[in-house]
């Protein structure tokens, strides 16, 4: 038979779509790969509190959803689909999909084919676990997930994989079982530092056996695995095989259905119409796969997509939100007209997809400042992106008259790209309307649309040149230079250029930072640290033709490269440029001499850079000559933040009595922000990276922060009255409050917010009795080096 609609993927989006299809009387079928509904939610931690963000958007679904435990949410859905007799088939993984409306064909893993007039894809983003890819991969003793390692005892278990999941499983299983880990390479390069240490130790002392450089050849009947090792094949008897090889992102499958993506970047989303239809007629995409990473949004889209299929052009659930956003604008309140107007006014948005633009505006604020109001101040740490819809703004300029920008132009890209402070103060002009978009959404846009990236990059270069190297050059010249410049990307420890190389150009550090070192007496001595917004390589160009030092990226870094030819042209056109350059060179030479005279200072700087402080904006350091290890800093942090300390004083390395504790360093380009479904991680004007209440506790940021400073924590018991505690000792001591909810199901992400909501600055620093704790920006690291030398 041919269904009117087949829905692929029984997560919140698919379930809601199926329920509504039933309600409207369509002939439909819901296919779910796993054995139960909503596999992604099934895999949350037991008892996890599921949150219903965004709160401003109403729920629109035939199924229920309100905040509550994972179990309660799943039970409500189960009951809903039972009551409605939703037509769902479990264990039905779709492996191929072809055709278009009204002839679509789906192939299931078992080879069965199904037919439908239209298909809704709601398979989420979790992907499917990568299989062993050898014969026997589906045998009963092979598994691709591990819920509870304590379930197994006294078994011989082969763990395949070298990532964090494999290592964590192997170590947990080794407590009660004999574990063999199989690694394709000769080291565990992908693992986090802590896991790496644990697994190498376990292998060294024999608690876990390891096969390096080994591939799985096959899984044999009767519980055995055949391995291809360096020295030949071996056969290992085992009770169980656990393969943790990561997930296959659904992108390849989605593309095989004919759906196009605007760019190759893995974060880009498929292009959809405002009815969620892809470029393949009859194929719809909703939920996390379509770029809506929250349950409520997914469910709403499930409902809406069925309405659209039916030809009902209903208004999306968040229509009202947009309408009220537009209320204060002088453009009238019709949502679609206003969206069109925004597209018309801002050339940057000219070619982006309607749905994407809608999402962007939804995530943005509309500002209508009074003339003379400050939009942002120089040295603020905000990183939003501003597009002018109407009126104009004035950018203050240290080197001359203010710069005017009018409707259709944008600003704010400098901080967005570099992660550094705002480079100028911007004031509103008359009747000014500004669309302020969060960094995350603009970055997504840049990843998806090449021309958006190009335009923003060009502006960045022109404005950087104008702000530093060539303040007086005419705009046309700068634009020409910008088109001839080159964007270069480096990962940590990459070399931009080496001492002795011929000087072929100048690097403007766009984000990240670099260290400069010189080889003296057979040893590399770090002579300086150069932050984003500055340039390196000028010495070779102005003076000698050879690089006098080696420049290395301390963290992931991007630079704008101006070749020697371009630079010479600039020198020829601007008499004062050479002078300015020579001044810089003089300062740098003096600094070099100072640092070379005291190689220990360079060692301290490179130690700090190894701790990743090259991307810090503000870091907590502890002077070990003063610290008495009383942990009052931790207690202060805990007591001013609901009982959980966000810093671990004792952890972390030290060098020359400078200790880098485990604590947020408020990165210029915070890794924690990369994958937060409700976009709850924000940066405040003073640079604090903080987490808003809308956090849903998914734990992505915890694993994305390379410095291990985010914890998932629940509420703690209230603090006792201080005087009462001092006199009677009743209640928990400061810093020692116990969690209210022992199951830990209500955890949210917590991290340092630099006490931005308390007056007086960070509590840790203020509570240190000996003055050992201090916060500092990397630019001030030089002050530290004075004491070593």
């Amino acid at each position, binding site marked *: 038979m041919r269904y009117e609609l087949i829905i692929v993927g029984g997560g919140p989006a698919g379930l809601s779509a199926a329920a509504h299809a039933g309600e409207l009387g369509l002939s439909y079928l819901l296919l779910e790969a796993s054995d139960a509904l909503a596999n992604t939610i099934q895999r949350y931690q037991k008892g996890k509190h599921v949150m219903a963000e965004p709160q401003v958007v109403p729920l629109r679904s035939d199924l229920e959803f309100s905040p509550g435990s994972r179990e309660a949410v799943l039970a409500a859905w189960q009951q809903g689909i039972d009551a409605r007799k939703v037509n769902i088939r479990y264990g039905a993984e779709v492996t191929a999909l072809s055709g278009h409306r009204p002839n679509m064909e789906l192939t299931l893993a078992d080879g069965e084919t199904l037919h439908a007039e239209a298909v809704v894809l709601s398979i989420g983003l979790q992907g499917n676990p990568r299989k062993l890819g050898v014969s026997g991969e589906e045998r009963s003793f092979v598994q691709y997930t591990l819920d509870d390692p304590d379930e197994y005892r006294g078994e011989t278990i082969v763990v395949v994989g070298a990532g964090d999941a494999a290592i964590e499983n192997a170590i947990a299983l080794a407590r009660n079982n004999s574990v063999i880990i199989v690694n394709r390479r000769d080291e565990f390069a992908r693992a986090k530092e802590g896991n790496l240490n644990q697994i190498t*130790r376990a292998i*060294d*002392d*024999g*608690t876990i056996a390891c096969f390096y450089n080994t591939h799985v050849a096959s899984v044999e009947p009767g519980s055995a695995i055949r391995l291809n090792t360096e020295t030949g094949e071996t056969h290992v008897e085992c009770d169980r095989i656990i393969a943790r090889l990561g997930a296959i992102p659904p992108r390849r499958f989605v593309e095989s259905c004919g759906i196009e993506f605007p760019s190759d970047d893995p974060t880009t989303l498929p292009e959809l119409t405002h009815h969620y239809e892809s470029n393949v007629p009859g194929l719809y995409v909703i939920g996390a796969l379509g770029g809506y990473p929250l349950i409520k949004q997914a469910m709403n889209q499930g409902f809406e997509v069925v309405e659209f299929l039916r030809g009902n052009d209903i208004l999306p659930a968040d229509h009202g939100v947009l309408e009220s956003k537009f209320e204060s604008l002088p453009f009238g309140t019709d949502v679609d007209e206003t969206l069109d107007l925004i597209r018309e006014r801002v050339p940057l948005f000219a070619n982006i997809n309607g749905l994407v633009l809608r999402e962007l505006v939804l995530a943005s604020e509309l500002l209508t400042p009074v003339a003379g109001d400050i939009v942002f101040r120089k040295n603020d740490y905000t990183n939003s992106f501003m597009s002018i819809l109407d009126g104009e703004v004035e950018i203050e300029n240290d080197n001359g008259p203010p710069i005017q920008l009018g409707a259709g132009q944008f600003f704010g890209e400098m901080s967005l790209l570099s992660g550094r402070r705002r480079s100028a103060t911007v004031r509103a002009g008359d009747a000014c309307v500004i669309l302020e978009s969060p960094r995350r959404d603009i970055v997504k846009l840049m990843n998806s649309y090449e021309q958006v990236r190009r335009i923003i990059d060009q502006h960045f270069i022109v404005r950087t040149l104008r702000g530093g190297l060539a303040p007086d050059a005419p705009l046309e010249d700068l634009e020409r230079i910008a088109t001839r410049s080159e964007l270069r990307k480096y990962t940590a420890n990459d070399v931009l250029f080496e001492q002795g190389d011929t000087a072929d150009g100048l690097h403007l550090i766009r984000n990240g930072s670099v260290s400069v070192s010189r080889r003296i007496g057979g040893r590399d001595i770090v002579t300086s640290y150069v932050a984003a917004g500055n340039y390196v390589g000028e010495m070779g160009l102005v003076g000698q033709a050879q690089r006098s030092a080696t420049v290395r990226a301390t963290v992931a870094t991007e630079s704008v490269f101006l070749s020697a030819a371009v630079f010479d042209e600039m020198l020829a056109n601007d008499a004062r440029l050479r002078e300015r350059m020579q001044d810089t060179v003089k300062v740098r030479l003096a600094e070099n001499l100072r640092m070379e005279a005291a190689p220990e200072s360079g060692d301290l700087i490179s130690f700090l850079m190894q701790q990743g402080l090259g991307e810090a904006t503000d870091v907590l*350091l502890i*002077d*070990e*000559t*003063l*610290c*008495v*290890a*009383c942990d*009052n800093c931790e*207690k*202060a942090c805990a*007591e*001013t933040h609901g009982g959980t300390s966000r810093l671990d004083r*004792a*952890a*972390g*390395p*030290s*060098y020359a*009595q*400078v*200790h880098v504790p485990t604590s947020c360093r408020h990165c210029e380009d915070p890794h924690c922000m990369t994958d937060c479904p409700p976009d709850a991680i924000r940066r405040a004007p003073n640079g604090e990276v903080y987490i808003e209440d809308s956090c849903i506790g998914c734990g992505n940021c915890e694993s994305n922060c390379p410095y291990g400073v985010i914890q998932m924590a629940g509420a703690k018991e209230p603090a006792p009255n*201080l*005087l009462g505690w*001092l006199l009677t000792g009743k209640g928990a001591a*400061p810093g020692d409050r116990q969690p209210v909810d022992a199951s830990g199901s209500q955890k949210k992400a917590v991290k340092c917010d630099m006490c931005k909501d*308390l*007056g*007086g600055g960070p*509590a840790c*620093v*203020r*509570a*240190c*009795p*000996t*003055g*050992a704790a*201090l916060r500092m920006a990397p630019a001030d690291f030089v*002050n*530290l080096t004075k*004491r070593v030398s």
Partner: protein
Amino acid sequence: MHESLLAFRRRFYLWVALLLVVGSVVAYWYHDPQEPPNGGTLLGYTLGTVGALLIAWLALFGVRKRSYASTLGTVQGWLSAHIYLGLALIVVVLLHAGFQFGWNVHTLAFVLMMLVILSGVFGVVVYLRYPVRMSRNRGGAPRSDLIDELEDIDRRSLRVAGSLGADFHEFVASGVQRTQLGATLWDRFRGRDSSQILLRQGGETVMAANPGQDAALDWLAEQQSISGDAETVGAISELSALIRNKRKLLRQLGADLKMQATLELWLYVHVPLTAALLAALLVHIVTVFLYW
């Protein structure tokens, strides 16, 4: 990199304290009461009141230290003031009492006060000296690294011991299990290594004290001397080397714990004596008014 407690704000509170001391001395010098100087003269009452207020304020430091959201100065600033003004108190109170002491509650209060101050001086000395020593002793690594390393040595020793047979394994395992450094704050302060080990001596198993892993090393040396084959001797000497490493680590860790305990323990003198001082002071003040 940062100012120490004493250097805080260019020793601002040192100057405040000196001013207080000089002021009191000058007043004492010029004050000419009918009776010999004592707490009952006008100046005596004044200085007594200043002293009592100072003590109350010094004791409040315990509250300020835990008022984590307070923006009233920083704890470091308070402590710097606490130290200098606490020392100035000696002069203020001596002048208040007109150097008159007897066997009475007034003098008891004074003695308690001096003990609190002396313990405070001890505290400041260790606060200023130990941090650098601790950091050097640990070689820049956090304490947890030392403990990890210790566990690592234990695991490796167990493996080597396993290759030497059940006896050796049992011996090493008992030593690992009974390694104990500073179980209580007091033990840590005394740097006591209360490790033990089970030794097999003439067919019997005895529990022996094993501070610094000495007993273990002795036993191993003995085993090595009576063992004939080269392989066993090799393994035993490997084991000894591991345990000598462990001894070194235990010393390092012991020194770290000892210094840490010293940094904490003196407060167990300073604070209870403060409580006693406050009580005695209250009695002193009440009695002088009763007998007035």
